[in-house]
């Protein structure tokens, strides 16, 4: 499959076609390039100088990737929140960037022998060879401003952050961990929805994770759902919207159906700002919108309030 086609696949999953239509690169591609710029050696960087500079897709502001990273991947000029991965969120949230990674040994399996344009197993192998990611969700335990918590965070880079058996199982074990150690649970969502290659097994993760959340609730432990750009489908139809607190990053696209599908259904253009965090807040589905820079402080403040 060509890179272009992979791109299409990601953008379709996220309902993010405008990025390409406007001639810009997609947010996922941007992130892949950014990571490459950061992780490659200095020698390699000389060959790819464009990796050192980054242009904001919202306001075209140009800054160095170092400056952007120091600003937690938020545009210094317009506050646009770039898409980032679990590594970055763990760094941002956990004190001194220290945490214990949990359940990394659980990986996806092609139980159904699913083949679309390529076999599911091949898709998995390819991603495993290209990135360090094991699957679309990572779980970690640590402290934020001294407050202990468990964080489960999705990686959009891994098949669009899709919800499959592995995410369901890691989510569930993270709940078990919270129950055992009496810890609050934060889930950071960033996903196009279901992992279609796991068919009905993927769908059943909605019920599986909800069952686990019921146990967490019975134990009186807080569950905070942080929605980031983009969060669609099965995630918003399950644990994404089931937080004791539902919060989101600014400007994130969040919804059940993707914008493309809605547009095709109603045969009308969608109003500006539709399905953005601010839209969801206005319609009563979020408790508040959290800037990435204040996220850690807000979280620890909330945990403090709930525990005392």
């Amino acid at each position, binding site marked *: 499959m060509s890179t272009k*086609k992979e791109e*299409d*696949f990601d953008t*379709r*999953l996220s309902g993010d076609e405008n990025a390409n239509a406007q001639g810009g690169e997609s947010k996922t591609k941007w992130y892949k390039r950014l990571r490459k710029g950061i992780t490659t050696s200095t020698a390699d960087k000389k060959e790819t100088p464009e990796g050192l500079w980054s242009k904001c897709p919202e306001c075209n502001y140009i800054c160095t990737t170092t400056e952007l990273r120091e600003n937690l991947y938020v545009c210094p000029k317009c506050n646009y929140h770039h898409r980032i991965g679990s590594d970055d969120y763990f760094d941002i949230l956990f004190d001194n960037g220290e945490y214990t990674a949990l359940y990394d*040994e*659980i990986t*996806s*399996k092609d*139980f*159904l022998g*699913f083949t*679309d344009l390529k076999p599911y197993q091949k898709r998995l192998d390819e991603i495993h060879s290209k990135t360090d990611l094991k699957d679309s969700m990572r779980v970690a335990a640590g402290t934020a401003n001294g407050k202990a918590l468990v964080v489960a965070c999705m990686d959009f880079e891994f098949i669009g952050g899709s919800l*499959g*058996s*592995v995410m*369901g*199982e890691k989510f569930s074990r993270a709940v078990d961990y919270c129950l055992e150690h009496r810890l609050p649970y934060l889930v950071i969502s960033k996903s196009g929805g*279901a992992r*279609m*290659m*796991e*068919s*009905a*097994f993927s*769908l*059943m*993760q*909605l*019920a*599986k994770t*909800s*069952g*686990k959340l*019921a*146990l967490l609730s019975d134990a009186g432990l807080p569950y905070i759902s942080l929605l980031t750009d983009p969060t669609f*489908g*099965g995630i*918003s*139809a*399950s*644990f*994404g*919207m*089931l937080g004791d607190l539902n919060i989101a990053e600014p400007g994130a696209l969040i*919804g*059940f*159906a993707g914008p493309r*599908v*809605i547009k095709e*259904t*109603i045969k009308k253009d*969608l*109003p500006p700002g*539709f*399905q953005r965090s601010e*839209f969801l807040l206005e*319609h*009563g*589905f979020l408790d508040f919108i959290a800037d990435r820079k204040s996220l850690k402080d807000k979280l620890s403040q909330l945990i403090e309030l709930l525990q005392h």
Partner: protein
Amino acid sequence: MPQYPNRQFLDFEQPIRELYEQIEENKRLAEKNSKVDYKSIIQQLEDAIIEKRKEITERLTPWQRVQLSRHPDRPYTLKYIDKMSTNFVELHGDRNVKDDKAMVGGFASLDGQTVMFIGQQKGINTKARQMRNFGMANPEGYRKALRLMKLAEKFGKPVVTLIDTPGAYPGLEAEERGQGEAIAKNIYEMVRLKVPIICCIIGEGASGGALGIGVGDKILMMENTWYTVISPESCSSILWRSWDKKEVAAEQLRLTAKDMKGFGLIDEIVPEPIGGAHWDYSEAASILKSHILRSLEELKQIPAEQRMNYRIDKFSKMGFWNEEPEAVGQTEKA
């Protein structure tokens, strides 16, 4: 069910239409000529129809199974409720926004015991199809369903859901009113509802729209239905980037009742009349009813607390994965 010539035929049912046409032809001839024994010819043709119905359903592809689940003559939720129960009182509205006509429900008596029926409803003609929004509920439909489930819980009555939807409605207002949240809340509440819940896929079981009334103690699937995370058409469009691969997608998704039972994702397959539920509504309803009654008996024996724990456990076990150093996972492939 509609009788010929009002009966509708899918492409692979055309040989049956031809047999009906022959019967009509022979009836016409019989009127003109009383000397020939047309009665036995017609009887033979009628037997051939039954034989054909059997033959066709014996070798259906997954895609044909999907087609059958959408058969225009197929019985819908209200038909099953009517045929299975007495004293049905339909209840309306979510007490908040409106009454969603794609989702119906109410108390009824099932052989003397009161149950709460809830299900998506499709329309039986063009006008009704629009009124029912093709069985695609809005958030208020899911909230109405939840209100009725809570009502059943309050009065200690079991819940029976009949699932038949091409999906939750992907509309602008649906998003404004929180389609995702509505479905999420239902799934969450169904996990811990204190009364027995029996769910049955009677037609299309498409994704979150189906699961939004699909979490229960017993999940039944009628023989010619499908249940998975996405319709074969949408799956084809996303994964194959073309609308033409729906047949392949239907195969790859393993969405039939037999597959689902094999995976342990559903509990029982409910057989249908020969050729499909659309050939005999009464028989289809009576088979379904016997399965529901049997499940109810079984579930009533279990204390409520235990039943909820079983429910959570059952869904917790669903999934497959590798785990180093040794591979662990769900039950082995059937």
